[in-house]
């Protein structure tokens, strides 16, 4: 075969390094590879309130294969700025990469990962059969919720709280005939006086 055979020492005759990297490109002890376990991270992002931003952010998370748990978006005190709360589950390098990729989008003003102690609230509306309205109300109150709509056929209750609390509430309501459930993703804020960015109003007090 005429196709090129090049001169030089063969692969097994060459200088070899001793180390190795893991799949994240981090140098590791070849004897004991430490793997990063996925963890839950809550990212809060201030974004310009303009068309297409939500698609841009959700597209970014999907095409870069970041594992997204929930995403909520809503207005802030500044008409031009919206706040997104994104919960992701990723190993550490993925969390950092997600933050940086998010910050790289032009309409994104600021990104922060909230501390694990941050306040997180979700909302659920749970519609159950209307034959035991008093019992439903009692369970709702146990979870700090309330009936928000009642008819002869159905009662709908509203529960807010942490993900765990809502999970527990939904389990409790399963004793009734659950007709339909809707849940939001998390909205989250840092505890204390800490706020994000100069663009949120009254942030420096």
């Amino acid at each position: 075969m005429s196709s090129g055979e090049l001169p030089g020492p063969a692969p097994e005759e060459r200088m070899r390094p001793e180390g190795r990297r893991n799949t994240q490109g981090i140098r590791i002890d070849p004897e004991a590879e430490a793997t990063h376990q996925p963890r839950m991270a809550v990212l809060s992002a201030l974004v310009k309130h303009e068309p297409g931003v939500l698609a841009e952010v959700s597209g970014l998370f999907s095409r870069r294969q970041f594992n997204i748990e929930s995403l909520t978006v809503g207005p802030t005190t500044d008409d031009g700025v919206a706040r997104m709360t994104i919960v992701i589950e990723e190993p550490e390098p993925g969390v950092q990469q997600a933050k940086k990729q998010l910050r790289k989008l032009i309409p994104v003003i600021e990104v922060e990962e909230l501390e694990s102690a941050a306040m997180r609230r979700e909302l659920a509306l749970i519609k159950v059969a209307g034959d035991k309205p008093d019992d439903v109300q009692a369970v709702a109150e146990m979870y700090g919720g309330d009936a928000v709509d009642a008819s002869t056929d159905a009662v709908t209750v509203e529960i807010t709280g942490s993900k765990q609390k809502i999970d527990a509430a939904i389990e409790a309501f399963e004793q009734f005939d659950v007709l339909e459930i809707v849940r939001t993703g998390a909205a989250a804020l840092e505890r204390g006086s800490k706020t994000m960015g100069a663009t949120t109003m009254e942030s420096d007090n």
Partner: protein
Amino acid sequence: MSERAFHQDPEPEPPADDKEEASDDAREVTTGAEAAIIALEEAGVDMAFGVQGGAIMPVYDALYDSDIDHITMAHEQGAAHAADAYGIVSGDPGVAMATSGPGATNLVTGIADASMDSDPMIALTGQVATDFVGNDAFQEVDTVGITQPITKQNYFAGDPDTLGADVSEAFALADAGRQGPTLVDLPKDASKAETDVQPVSPETPDTYHPPETADEVVVQAAAEALQDADRPAILSGGGVIKGEASDELRAFARKYDIPVITTMPGLGSFPETDDLSLGMAGMHGTGAANLAITNCDVLVGVGTRFDDRLTGGVDTFAPDAEVIHVEIDPAEINKNIYADYPLLGDAERVLEQLDDELTDAPEADEWREQCQTWTEEYPLDYETPDDEPLKPQYVVERFAELADDDAIVTTGVGQHQMWACQFWTYTEPRTWVSSNGLGTMGYGVPSAIGAKLGAPDREVVTFDGDGSFLMTMQELSVAVREDLDITYVILNNEAIGMVRQWQDGFYEGRRMASEYPWIPEFDLLAESFGARGFRLEEYDEVDDVIRQAREYDGPAVIDAIIDPGENVYPMVPSGGDNGLFALSEEQLDNL
């Protein structure tokens, strides 16, 4: 055309080559379309590449009165690649224009290409009128949605009063920080609508802050690590060229006597004639570069994103090295390879910062000698039989010898591209114009047009494959029409050669859909386009044909019939260990 009758210019129209004068009177914006064109003029644009069409007609109509030269391409993909190449050689954003629907989707490959290689480019696309958007109107496509992942930022410019500002901002963003493509989608009603909002000078949005200088603490720590290195190496990437940091990098490497490896987009950032140069690393890199990158203990990566064709498998990439990563895009830090010392900032300024902290060259004479030995042990070579068919490497090498020192090389994608990397000698930035990241076959013919128009005084040669040439050869009509002095060399093996090489190497020689049972005679084809065509088959004709093609004042096409069995070596298989590069098919089989 009767359209002229509608241009009721109060003053007589200036002759074509006397347009300079007209530019002195600042034109007043009266429509959205004019706002777009005047915004480009304000940004210093003097050339655009594009194809006309329904929804972009108002914008083209505004171009009628502009000093901006418009190059009508045969296909919108050609417009995008030409604008991309124009951006690479000039450093300023190239402009591509297309209509809505298929015009916009035809641009997509070129925009994605610019995105992967961080090439500065701005695309203007027509769009159906805002009343029709969302109705699946004729030639409607969601251009902003489609191009969102492949642009730095894109804009739906539905308001004539802000349309000019959108174009200005898009231009500024394409050029700033890590360069890249932007796009402005221009609905026809907004382009036609009246506005008196005058253009603003291009400025990036207030949320955009590329880093300039790196954290001093990290710089000091990085300098210390480099100072103490036993086996230091520099990896010079495309960002060195984009960031105009070649001079700084050369001075830095020489002052501290550190061997330099380049990435493919980094070709030309450091002269391959320099004793410190080890050449390009990666899948088809040199033995010296791949051994040095594998065995170094401190690696200074400048303006590189550690792409997989460079790193091979990350588990075996520079596994003993502390990595100093000089980079303008924070998202590149730790994306593929962990940076022990992330130095965020402009390449030139960060190299200055490092220089300020370093005192002496690292004591690494043994390593320098080792690198030298590798260079001698692993020359890029090929068999030169006396008998035809021609070896492609010989054709590239002879052309390099006969061409101007600062000639620009553009390529398609495949084996010919790798031979153009390996057997041409790159010494200056902005002389390598290729589809590095996206790997777009067909990049060659239109990129030469953009490169020649972006650097009219420089020699431009394109190495193409027969497969790549067939994908965009219609753009040869543009090279002829614009009378561009370009030499196209088709390294013709009547196959998609790289696929054929992989089939032989990894698919037991099952050559599915890689060989052409018949292809055109490219020299005759060139002549029918109005270019000069040459057929090159014999060794003793090579120099003569190259000379004739170079001397011809206009586009020339050399159809070089090469050995169809020739493969590209060295080779690191995809995801493989750079240090174990194969020098032959037998070694590849054993990896």
